């Protein structure tokens, strides 16, 4: 059936350097809406490693709006390197085998606006300060938001991080999680207003 698609005649294989034709303009984003709860979350989505993993950490926090109210219908995704700084290309993020670390997780916020991931603290990739990439979707967000979770213990690497250097000094702390237990890190996300989290856009 695919040989009947009109698009088949437009783009076959790599088209690097092709002049702008208007065909490959981005598809716009739309809000995830309120009703993804039976569709996108999945079994063990928030558990990148089992809780009994020797290096398991809790990464958690609350998502709040411009009035300070908890956002009870946000969906968060994380993507990160493993403890040694390696990025996984293993299958199995959706159908976890309880052993393979795939680096991807998905969690919906609770009725209190709280989210929790069980994962490992990432190692540095290419010598940079380690971080967890977070993507936030919610009703009311017409487009997702990206941010990064850094770790306060990585003092030396944080001090020389080029991305943190681009962030106004008084907002930098919004990107750095706070250790609130032996293996627990808190990262609250404020969508708007006082203490608004720094959100990132990538020159990709």
């Amino acid at each position, binding site marked *: 059936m695919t040989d009947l698609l009109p698009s088949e005649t437009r783009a076959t294989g790599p088209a690097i350097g092709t002049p702008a034709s208007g065909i490959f303009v981005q598809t716009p984003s739309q809000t995830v809406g309120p009703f993804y709860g039976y569709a996108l979350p999945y079994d063990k989505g928030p558990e990148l490693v089992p809780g009994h993993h020797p290096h398991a950490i809790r990464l958690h926090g609350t998502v709040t709006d411009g009035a300070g109210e908890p956002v009870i219908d946000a969906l968060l995704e994380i993507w990160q390197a493993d403890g040694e700084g390696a990025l996984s290309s293993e299958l199995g993020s959706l159908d976890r085998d309880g052993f393979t670390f795939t680096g991807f997780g998905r969690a919906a916020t609770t009725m209190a606006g709280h989210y929790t991931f069980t994962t490992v603290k990432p190692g540095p990739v*290419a010598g940079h300060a380690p971080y967890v990439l977070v993507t936030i979707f919610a009703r009311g967000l*017409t487009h997702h938001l990206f941010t990064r979770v850094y770790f306060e213990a990585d003092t030396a690497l944080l001090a020389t991080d080029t991305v943190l250097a681009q962030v106004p000094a008084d907002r930098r702390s919004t990107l750095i999680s706070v250790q609130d237990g032996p293996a627990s890190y808190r990262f609250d996300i404020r969508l708007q*207003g006082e203490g608004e989290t720094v959100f990132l856009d*990538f020159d*990709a």
Partner: protein
Amino acid sequence: MPHDTLPAPARGSGQESQDSVTAEIRAIEADAARRVQQGGSPELHPRRDYPPYRSSLLRHPTHELVRVDPEEVERVSPAFGHTDVNVLESDLTIQHVGEPLGERMTVSGRVLDGEGRPVRHQLVELWQANAGGRYVHKRDQHPAPLDPNFTGVGRVITGDNGEYKFTTIKPGAYPWKNHVNAWRPAHIHFSLFGNAFTQRLITQMYFPGDPLFALDPIYQSIADPAARARLVGTYDHDLSVSEWSIGYNWDIVLTGPKATWMEGEDAHD
């Protein structure tokens, strides 16, 4: 944006009329058109701060996004494949004992990057209301019937040419509480992964000729008419199957890798 020209009533009360919301929509669209006339790039994406969509009022960031170079983490993406998605998950009409009510349809197309290259072997997720406009979601209070033979969730892994295909039923329009008598045009929610995490996209596909387009603050949050038209699938008679299903085509283009000839980046963000 000319906030001072917008109507003043209690935004977000849910009590405003369609006419007043439509007036806001048209004012923002006119503002966007003026910017293009003055040499600006058309807005490719919805505005994050889009008052006609009341839920955006307290949820959009007020600071500019900080634009940074992606590192390796953002330049790659999780891998999904046959161990994650069963091939049967692309057919939403065979998930129960009986067949769902509604107009059986297929939606197929390709997932491409900004240079027209196929996004191969990546995850596409889809969810939707049933033919009556009701979601299988506990917070959906629309008094339309659930269909015991329809859940409305599908997944597929794209093929070697970035192609995907779902079999489903056409979703119904449904009411929501943005304002009085607010109705969402029929749509299917899509979630997409690219080869880089920066390409991540969640969006909605619409159906051609829907009379609700002009009234819907979510569709209209994309201020440029040509940009929002990219969300409307194309009816393709060659994709319809005789005595079986109606066929729509919808190609999806993810961001990047951004090339210098790409115009209209970050017009609003």
